């Protein structure tokens, strides 16, 4: 039983999933946000919130990253760049949209220079609402995404309940 390919497969999948859940490296991209969300993301990365506890590390190169954290609506100028950053990431990769603008276009919805929300350009795996969301909410969103990864499936979009992070 121990040598059946099925069993080996299961063990290997288990180990890789464990490693993936415990070592998410993120890259941060601003596709046209007002900078409010970005300031909150940077605050999340400071020693005060210490996300290295979860193994999260900020990476400069899309080639090293697993999770693309993007903020803001997608402008016509940023669309190409956002797609390029996404395509440069190696599989498996995930996208987290931070802020109301990333979810729906927010205050920029309908502007002449805006393509729309991030969902219209990339497949988003988790949404973190707020304008801007607090660092705790961002951590919570990423950890919820990781918990879904543990089940081994690409997560269904997670929309946290309103009032969850008051």
């Amino acid at each position: 039983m121990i040598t059946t390919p099925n069993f080996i497969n299961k063990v290997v999948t288990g180990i890789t999933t464990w490693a993936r859940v415990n070592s998410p490296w993120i890259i941060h991209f601003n596709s046209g946000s007002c900078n409010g969300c970005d300031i909150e993301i940077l605050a999340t990365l400071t020693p005060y919130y210490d996300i290295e506890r979860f193994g999260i590390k900020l990476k400069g190169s899309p080639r090293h990253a697993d999770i693309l954290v993007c903020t803001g609506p997608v402008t016509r100028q940023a669309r190409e760049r956002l797609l390029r950053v996404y395509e440069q990431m190696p599989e498996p990769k995930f996208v987290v949209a931070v802020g109301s603008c990333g979810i729906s276009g927010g205050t920029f919805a309908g502007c002449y220079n805006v393509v729309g929300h991030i969902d219209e350009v990339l497949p988003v795996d988790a949404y973190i609402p707020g304008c801007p969301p607090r660092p705790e909410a961002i951590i919570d969103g990423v950890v919820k995404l990781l918990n879904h990864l543990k089940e081994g499936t690409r997560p269904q979009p997670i929309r946290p309940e309103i009032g969850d992070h008051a």
Partner: protein
Amino acid sequence: METLLAITSIMFFPAGLSLIFSGMLYEWADRKLVARFQNRVGPRWFQPLADTIKLLAKEEIQPLGVNQALFFGLPVVALSGALTAALYVPIFGIQPAYSFPGDLIVTLYLLSLLTMCMGLAGWNSASRFSIVGATRTLTQLFAYEAPFLLALLGPAMAADSWQIGKIVAYTESHWMIVLQPVGFVIALIGLMGKLELPPFDAPEAETEIVAGALTEYSGRGLALFHIGRSVEMVIGVSLVTAFYLGGLGNPLIFLAKSLGLLLVMAFLQSVLVRLRIDQTVGMWWRAGAILALLQILALIVLK
């Protein structure tokens, strides 16, 4: 039998798997200590292991316009260079597996192989960030390599031998940190330059040049370079401990000494800021090299 023994020592002990795992432990200790200096909790103990497995399981992208053989070969060469160097070094205070007169020089050159490979990998990646990173990596190599070598030559000259085993036997009765304090400081800081730790992390400054020479590497190649770096850390720390902090002695005491060295390195990492590449080179040649030479001169005169 001979070959079997050689294969075992490369695959498992003292090089190979045991070294890779201890490299991960050292990397964790370093990250954890830096985290504690910054007053945060820091990574969990299995963090480097999880990072490595994740990278190994990821897709490996080959950018357009690179030489395929070099792109996939360089990480392997880098790691094997570091692992081979371990055969001549007393890791954890255990006598080295192989030894011959002059193995100190061979070890030091094997250790530089990793940096060379990184530089070549950066050149080969055909991306502007990696080329800038590669240039900085190689420039920095020329800065710290000579003073570091001179600093390790001090104990070698005092022991009248170029064989690591004999030098270590000599330093056991002579604490070199007392006799050659300048050499110790230069060796320690040179080691930090070799490992590209802050303040010498200009080659991979993520705020300016993304990730330096390794920008285009993903998946396995990146993992191998990472492992090579942490293996180099184990070897470097062991070498400096054995040369300057009273030889081999008991493996447990040796481990405690190397941890003390790591503590000092983590402290320096968290209090110093990144130097520009020209400042690094200037500092090494204006202060480091001259001090190391003076130390050697004093050694020759007093001996």
